[in-house]
Structure formats: C-alpha cells, structure tokens
C-alpha cells in the first residue's frame, strides 16, 4: 500500500509547535499530525462521525494555532480600508465581522481573514496559521505609513464550537454576563468581556461560535464543553465540513498566484466607493476590464471514487482545469470538489482520476449549509 495522493497534512522537519490544549487532545486519544508546523488532532477516532456530529448536533475544534492580530490607533479604520480588499467601512455595529482577502500589489491573495470591528480605533483580525510570519511582516510594513499599532495576541487560545446545538451549549457554560450577550448576537458578530471574545462565526457551514480566551482558561473551558456533551473533532472533519460548505482554504483553493475574481471570492471585493484605494485595486481593475477566462466551480462526482486536489478537469472542448480541493462528502455520501476551470465549462466535465476519465456534474460551489444539501443530487 502506498499513498498515491498526498494526504492533506504536510510533514515538515522544522520545530513543531503545540497549542495549550495539546495534552488535552492526547488524553482524549487524538491521532495527532503535523499540520503546517503545528502538532494538531486530525481525528479522535472517526473523522466521519465527527463530521456528522457537527452537522447534526455539536462538536468543537481547537483552532488556537490561528493567528489573532489587534489593530489599534486613530487611523485603524483608514489603515484597514487600505490593507483589505473588502471595506471595513461596512462595519458600523460594534462587534460586526467581515470576511476579506488581503492582496499584494498584483492582486494576488496574501491571505484570507476575518476582521472584527471593536470600535473606531480597534479592530481584531484572525488570519491563517500557515501564513502567520508573512502576514505579520506584510501588515507591519504597510502599517508604517499609518498611526496604528499592530499586536499579535499569541497568548489567546481559540476554540470553535459548531453545530445546531452549539449556541445553547456554549451559552450555558460561559461566564454569566458573557453568556447573556452571546445568546443575543447575530450571525457574523461578536461580543466580549475582559479577555474573552465570542464570535458567531465558523468554518463549517453550521451555526456556532469561535471563542477566544486566555490560554490559562482554555483547558478548563474545553473540559466544561466536554462535560455538557460537546464532542471533540479534529482538523480532518473541519476540512470536509468546510469543503461541503464551499469555503475556500488558503494555500489550496487560492494563494498569491491567484486573485479573488478567479477564486470564487469576487463577492468579497468592495468596489464601491470608487475612490477607495486598497492594495491590489489597480491590478484588480485591469483584470476585471480584460475579463476573466477562468471560473471557480463545484463538482459532484457521478461515479465511484474520491476527487482529490490537483486532479485535472477535462472539458468537452478539450481545455483543462484543476481541482483545488476535493474529498468525500459524508453528508451526501458522494465525492465533491472545488475547481478552477476554463470559463467555457458546461454542465458536465470529466475528471482525470489516476489516468481514468470519470464523469462529474458542475454545480455551485456550496454543497451543504445548516445541515441541508444545497444542490440536486
């Protein structure tokens, strides 16, 4: 037996980092893997069971490896309006969150992130773990021209609790005052008390919270969640959940060689107001004027097998695209994928799976949300 496709985790030799919950995972019998330089749980037994528990009930993920960066200062808003392709001016209600790409001058995606509006002088960014160093370097460089400070909050742990029962379970054990506020917040909003920060956000397509809290409180809170019946889930399930939800994964579905328009992320670019200068705007304007020759789509495999990243997508006219993320959908019991393909793609295509051409249907890149299948199967 030999791995014919590279597993989605990548082995590296550099010094491995651990989150504050590392021992807790090991006590629960987690299978640990090197996940972009972090020693993280891939599952605690069955990835498929963990996937279903999030769709049907509630599960939790240690996402403390993600990078939290606070932007503070009189020009915080101006700075972020320049730094990000989406416009933080849309954030008018305290705690409101926005998803955005951070672009380079040629409109390549440096990272995707969530920005929370705390007040006019304070915003919080959550960026990917694998891009931490380059993001911090880029943000600090750009910040030099503004009256702002950039602080990484590496002492915060982060736990994502996701699923239809997530809010009820979390609110029942949060410190009282925060529990009351958390019960009230709308999707894509946050509330906080002291160092505890609760966002109604996630990466699964289900309702839930992402909770940032001081590291020394993390294991206690994790254990309380276990006690009220929240099942621990590994990054394996997190990947199949986000794939079903059609959410992009940085480094797989897009990177610095792609712009948001060819990555299914045009909706995250704020073109208005016309006079807002953001990094990458000029390049993006030019790309938009020329017109796009590629498209970001979802694929549903019509035959047996499992779609995988980098498999070629062969169109009827002979042109070729590529799967960016593929896998097995436990909810649909079918294989699905996200793919970047020539704009000429029709309703079906063929996938070159290890030398065999297999039939796939082209669908909207959003397969499952809130427990419901979104496409015709």
């Amino acid at each position: 037996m030999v791995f014919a496709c590279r597993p989605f985790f990548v082995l590296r030799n550099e010094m491995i980092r651990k989150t504050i919950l590392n021992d807790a995972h090991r006590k629960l019998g987690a299978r640990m893997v090197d996940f972009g330089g972090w020693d993280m749980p891939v599952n605690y037994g069955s990835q498929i069971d963990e996937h279903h528990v999030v769709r049907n009930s509630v599960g939790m993920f240690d996402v403390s490896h993600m990078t939290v960066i606070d932007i503070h200062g009189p020009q915080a808003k101006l700075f972020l309006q320049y730094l990000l392709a989406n416009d933080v001016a849309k954030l008018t209600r305290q705690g409101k969150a926005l998803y955005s790409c951070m672009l380079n001058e040629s409109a390549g995606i440096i990272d995707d992130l969530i920005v929370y509006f705390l007040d006019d002088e304070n915003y919080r960014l959550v960026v990917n773990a694998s891009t931490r160093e380059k993001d911090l370097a880029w943000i600090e460089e750009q910040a030099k021209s503004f009256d702002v400070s950039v602080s990484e909050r590496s002492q915060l742990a982060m736990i994502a609790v996701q699923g239809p029962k997530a809010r009820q379970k979390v609110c029942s054990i949060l410190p009282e005052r925060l529990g009351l506020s958390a019960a009230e917040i709308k999707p894509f909003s946050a509330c906080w008390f002291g160092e505890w920060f609760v966002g109604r956000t996630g990466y699964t397509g289900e309702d839930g919270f992402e909770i940032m809290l001081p590291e020394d409180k993390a294991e206690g809170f994790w254990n309380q969640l276990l006690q009220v019946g929240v099942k621990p889930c590994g990054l394996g399930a997190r990947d199949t959940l986000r794939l079903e939800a059609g959410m992009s994964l940085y480094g797989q579905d897009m990177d610095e060689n792609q712009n948001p328009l060819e990555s299914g992320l045009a909706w995250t670019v704020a073109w208005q107001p016309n006079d807002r200068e953001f990094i990458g705007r000029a390049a993006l304007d030019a790309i938009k004027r020329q017109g796009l020759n590629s498209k970001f789509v979802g694929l549903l495999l019509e035959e047996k097998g499992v779609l995988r990243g980098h498999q070629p997508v062969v169109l009827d006219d002979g042109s070729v695209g590529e799967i960016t993320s593929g896998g097995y959908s436990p909810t649909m019991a079918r294989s699905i994928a996200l793919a970047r393909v020539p704009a000429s793609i029709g309703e079906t295509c063929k996938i070159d799976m290890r030398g065999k051409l297999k039939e796939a249907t082209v669908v909207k890149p959003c397969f499952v949300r809130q427990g419901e299948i979104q496409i015709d199967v």
Partner: protein
Amino acid sequence: MSNTPDDRKYADSHEWALLEADGNVRVGISDHAQELLGDLVFVELPEAGQSVGKGDECSVVESVKAASDIYSPVTGEIIAINDALEDSPEAINESAYEDGWIFIVKPTDTSELDELLDADGYQNLIEDE
C-alpha cells in the same frame, strides 16, 4: 494501538497475506495501515479471474485522507473479491484482518510467501516508521 496477528505474513507495503487450508492466499491491509488512512470511503476491487504478479497494483483503497494502491503479495489468479466492501468500505477500519479482507489469490508458488515479513518483522517495521 494496532495489532498484528501471527497467523499470516506481511508486505512492507502494509498488505497482509493469509495462507488458507485450501492453499489459496487471502489478502487485506494491516490494522496499522487502516489507522494511518483514517475512515475508508471507497474500495476499487480487482476482477475475479484477473492474473496478478507479485507486487502488481491490483486494487485501490480511498480514505477521507488519501488514495492508496494495494499490491498483490503473491503471483497467481484472483479467484474471489470481497464484494461487501463496495457498500461497506468501513469494514476495513472495523475489522482489517477478518471482514475487511479484499481479495483471494490462487497462488502459482506459495514459496513467495517466505519472502514476506512475519508478524514480529512487520511490527518492527511499523515501530521504526
């Protein structure tokens, strides 16, 4: 932890080969291999009647994580396949050495089995990995 029954031989590519009373060789993947792969979701079985050489790719198992080729540990003819895996690939996760068998080869030369690892040898191999 994975277990390694000593009634059979093992390839360093993680297949097991069990010589049965009728002289045929039943083949599957080790418990260690299924653990590494995670939940299996699809098995591409060989065809009964197909001739295979020792070390030939003749089946593919796909898990939530990766696709893996299965190599025949002996030369011969495939005389049976485990059809139940078509609908229940998870049988390999649940019972790698019994219900999760993949195919049976009628071997041309059972002495090829001597070239495989015994349980201790295989256990040492996976501990070194």
